[in-house]
């Protein structure tokens, strides 16, 4: 008997509500997650964009006033905005590939058949588990011009000590080194997980065929690692665009504003200056930047499928 001809008259009427189509069921099951996401993501982002069109400074004592795109116009004339934006992009360009290369090396090292695995794994985890601000503080002391270990080593090797945080370039270098140290272990963990999914038999086959170690790396390891690398890169790039803690603790943006990032400038405008309108407009720019980068990566992944 076809389903459509089924006699439903003997069932109570309310059971009709239980007989959901697949689509309705899907909507019902997704609703809690969608509701939660809209509360914690959609609403704040929408509110942020809304606030960016207002002049809203708590220190002015004036009520919020709709000013259209004026905050964004101010931004174009604001040299500090451009400087912090450029610094952010530069940190991303330097530290993302840096962390990838170091992380890859660490992952390959950790993947070697050690007799006891846990000390290697643990030492990989520690930088990742350390809070960012602690890492910033620790490295600020490492690079201290008088009491720091880096200058101590330099002097012992016969070089002259560097006043790291006195020059924009050295300060920038110190920050990038710290970020690479801090984030490469996350990269390594992601890549290590990928490495362990590669079947050993592929390497054995390559050995039989006479392929050397380097050839094996480029022909087997790298292509099979691509998905793990892309995912790791997405996460790393987005966190690089939001860099805040490490420069905040190490240089607080100095000397001058030469190592300040966009996230620090947003924090300064909203938390220190209480200028929520301008701060929101800056945050909208950062949001757009993160979205754009994610879109590019997602495109790369999709192209591979």
């Amino acid at each position: 008997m076809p389903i459509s001809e089924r006699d439903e008259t003997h069932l109570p009427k309310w059971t009709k509500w239980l007989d959901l189509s697949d689509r309705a069921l899907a909507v019902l099951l997704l609703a809690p997650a969608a509701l939660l996401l809209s509360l914690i993501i959609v609403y704040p982002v929408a509110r942020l964009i809304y606030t960016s069109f207002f002049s809203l400074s708590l220190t002015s004592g004036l009520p919020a006033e709709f000013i259209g795109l004026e905050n964004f116009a101010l931004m174009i004339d604001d040299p500090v905005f451009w400087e912090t934006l450029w610094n952010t992009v530069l940190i991303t360009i330097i530290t993302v590939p840096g962390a990838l290369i170091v992380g890859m090396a660490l992952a390959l090292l950790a993947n070697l058949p050690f007799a006891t695995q846990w000390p290697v794994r643990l030492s990989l985890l520690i930088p990742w588990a350390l809070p960012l601000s602690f890492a910033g503080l620790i490295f600020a002391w490492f690079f201290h011009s008088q009491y720091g270990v880096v200058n101590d080593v330099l002097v012992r090797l016969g070089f002259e000590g560097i006043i790291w945080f006195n020059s924009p370039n050295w300060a920038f270098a110190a920050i990038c080194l710290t970020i690479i140290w801090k984030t490469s272990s996350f990269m390594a963990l992601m890549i290590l997980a990928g490495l362990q999914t590669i079947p050993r038999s592929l390497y054995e086959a390559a050995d039989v065929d006479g392929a050397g170690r380097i050839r094996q790396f480029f022909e087997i390891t790298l292509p099979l690692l691509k998905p793990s690398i892309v995912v790791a890169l997405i996460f790393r790039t987005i966190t690089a665009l939001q860099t805040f803690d490490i420069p905040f603790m190490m240089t607080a943006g100095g000397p001058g504003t030469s190592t300040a990032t966009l996230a620090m400038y947003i924090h300064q405008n909203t938390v220190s200056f209480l200028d929520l309108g301008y701060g929101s407009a800056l945050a909208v720019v950062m949001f757009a930047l993160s979205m754009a980068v994610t879109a590019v990566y997602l495109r790369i992944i999709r192209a591979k499928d």
Partner: protein
Amino acid sequence: MNSKSLKGLALCASILGFSIPAHAADTELKIFVSSQHHPEVWRKTFDQYEARTPGVKITIEPGGNTSEAQAQYLNTVMSAKDTTLDVLMLDVIRPAQYAAAGWTSEFQAKDIEKFLPTYTEANTVDKKVVAVPAFADAMFLYYRKDLLDKYGVQPPKTWDELAAAAKKITEGEGRPDLQGLSFQGKAIEGAVCTFLLPYWSQGKTLVENGKLNFDHAAAVKSLSLWKSFVDNGVAKKNISEVATDDTRKEFQAGNVVFAINWSYGWSSFQGKDSAVVGKVDVARLPAVAGGDQATCLGGWEFGVSAYSKHQEEAKKFVGYISSPEVSKYMAVNGALLPTYADLYTDADVVKAAPWFANALPVVETAKARPVTPRYNEVSETIRTTVNAVLAGVTSPEEGATQIEARLKRILR
């Protein structure tokens, strides 16, 4: 009215009678106290107030160790209109901003008249009294009496004299770790004063009636002066890394001839961890050639939160903790400078801190940093520029132009 209802009334009255004092005992005032200014000594004065005001209980909410940390915390709490804090102890640069944001409630004009006039001025915005002073402070020139005597040098009256004296002493001593002058070059609040000292000394003001009154030439001269100290070796090369407490530590370790710092340095320099006990004296900060000696006004103020549910009680409490009695107690036991002129010569105060007698003219002539609701932005602009100039990233000329351009935007 029969006897029964009378009895009932009496019963009600007695219940009410008991319950009113019991209810009043619940008035709990919470005061936000900066952690670096001896909360434990303040506590003793709060105990006094509790003892003489039955029904009021005071609890302390400790703030952070720096003015910046406290401001960050208070910005969040006050934006959230938190009702739990009643009284706030605020760095002198904050009351104007908090009043503009509507975070503090106004005092009456008579509450402020009895204090040192500099504080009356610093706590009055548009003729409204926004806070009352807790204790005074100013920047001083600390110097090594023993070294100045050894080389027959008088305490300098001008910055040029200071540079010459520093050169003479550091060269004579021949110790590579001895610095001529230590001041604040890191991008912190202290660097704002660093910029303003020689600027003010040229008779210029930064803000007049809420409007920018910037003198470009004076600003260039101020920034050039500090940069020249770095270039001539009067100050150390990494002065752009030096914060207020670094100056204190280095002077205390005996590695500095002249140091610019707040009054808190004195008790550390005479403390048991100090290498310079009995070798230190204090003077007014020097002037630029042909200018007046000028210094930066510090100190902390009491404000009453606009969101406090105990406005009357909180103001009464502030009345007590800002009284001459408490100011004297804090001077004697906490080494905090008094907010009343006559206390500087008070026998007990002078006995506890002999140098306070010389501090009065400094505090009396100290200048307040710009009183504006957007002070944080003004401060940020000045301190990052001073830092950039000292690090050699920006020239004094460019620095002055940058400060002017940014301040114009902030104080438009």
